[in-house]
């Protein structure tokens, strides 16, 4: 098994069935997977923030830092390498918030940006584990497209 690790503001994809793509450290960040069951190709992006704040330069420099540019770039990379856009299955995890936070809501804003992006592109999430106050680790298994979220020692499949 090859373990491909996705850092914050990063994306990785693969079509090797033995690979597993993982991202740790999902706090308020949101992790999004896209998987094509036909080619068994999939990717995982780890976005820090919803959109580039008045900075086109930063979005160009670090596209995976932001939900609106990061997810789009991941889809483009998958399609360029042979995935079928219409077959892609999307899942998401993360988007936690500080307890009692009514000030910043970064996790909530990340999730809202993702939902808006999905709506505009007329696709939907097939599974998600978002919100709350817990850290999460997200795995995408390329052989089956299985997405597993681990948090506080417990695992669940999306």
């Amino acid at each position, binding site marked *: 098994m090859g373990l491909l690790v996705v850092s914050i503001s990063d994306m990785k994809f693969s079509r090797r069935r033995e690979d597993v793509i993982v991202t740790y450290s999902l706090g308020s960040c949101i992790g999004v997977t896209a998987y094509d069951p036909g080619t068994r190709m999939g990717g995982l992006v780890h976005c820090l923030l919803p959109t580039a*704040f008045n900075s086109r330069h930063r979005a160009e420099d670090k596209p995976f*830092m932001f939900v609106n540019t990061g997810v789009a770039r991941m889809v483009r990379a998958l399609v360029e390498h042979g995935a079928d856009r219409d077959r892609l299955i999307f899942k998401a995890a993360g988007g936690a918030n500080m*307890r009692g936070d009514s*000030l910043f809501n970064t996790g909530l804003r990340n999730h809202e940006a993702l939902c808006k992006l999905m709506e505009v592109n007329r696709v939907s999430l097939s599974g998600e584990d978002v919100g709350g106050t817990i850290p999460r680790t997200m795995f995408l298994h390329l052989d089956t497209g299985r997405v597993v979220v681990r948090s506080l020692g417990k695992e669940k499949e999306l």
Partner: protein
Amino acid sequence: MTRREAILSKVAEVVAIPSFAPKAAVLLNDPDSDLVQLARIIEYDPGLTANLLKIVNASFFSGRNPLLTARDAIDRLGSAQMLRFVVSTGVAPTFVCKVEGYDLAPNMHLQHSVTVALAARELGAVLGLDAPDHVFTAGLLSGVGKILLGAYVEVDVRPILDLVDRGMAFDRAEDEVLGVNHAEVGALLLEKWKLPQPLVNVVRHHLRPEEAPEPDLVLDLVHIGNVLAKMIGVGLGLDGLNYEPSREAAQRLKLTPEILDEVSANVVVDLRAVWDLFLECAGEASPL
């Protein structure tokens, strides 16, 4: 003896906070290591920074102007030989494999502490504030109480998490179960070590700045730096994001979500520059 008294008596016996940087031991034993190498590793390690400030303030430069940062202490010692002598003889570093109870690998706690320090400093810069230099050190040391409770008390975290599940913030649940929270534990030790009061105050109140006797810019920056580090997600333990951001601190700093977003983005970029230090710590790397 109450649980609180038992914990505090155990913490009072602590003579040195463990380090998370095995590389420090290698450098300290290497007569050819230079000051820059040694200084960098000490500046980013909470245990070594606290131990160094303790010894230097007590033995070398006691007086009206105690040293507040590892950088100042290192500059005053002046040479690698002197630094090696002070650290090796006064605070021979010990290393922990895991912060028990909080389920933190050493590299995770190190990453989190450094992220708090970077975020606090970066927040001051983005806001255009002329923040004192010790904002980085205060941020780095803010979580030392967790190391102490994990390494020396081996807290059973389950009853704390039960209260968190019922809606209580983690530090308030610590108060309820242990009679003390990790911020207070850290402050009590640093106070006993006679570290400068501006550092002790930040450590004590960094989770609830509104309870400080008076407003303090460094405290506000470290409080929000800690919030940002948790939202970014670097080095999170079982306590997760279960802390309450202070409305008062946010208002004093005039924060907006846009400002926090900018700081978060800058911090993630800054972390790349210290990634090599994280890789040198612990057997496994917990990637950013």
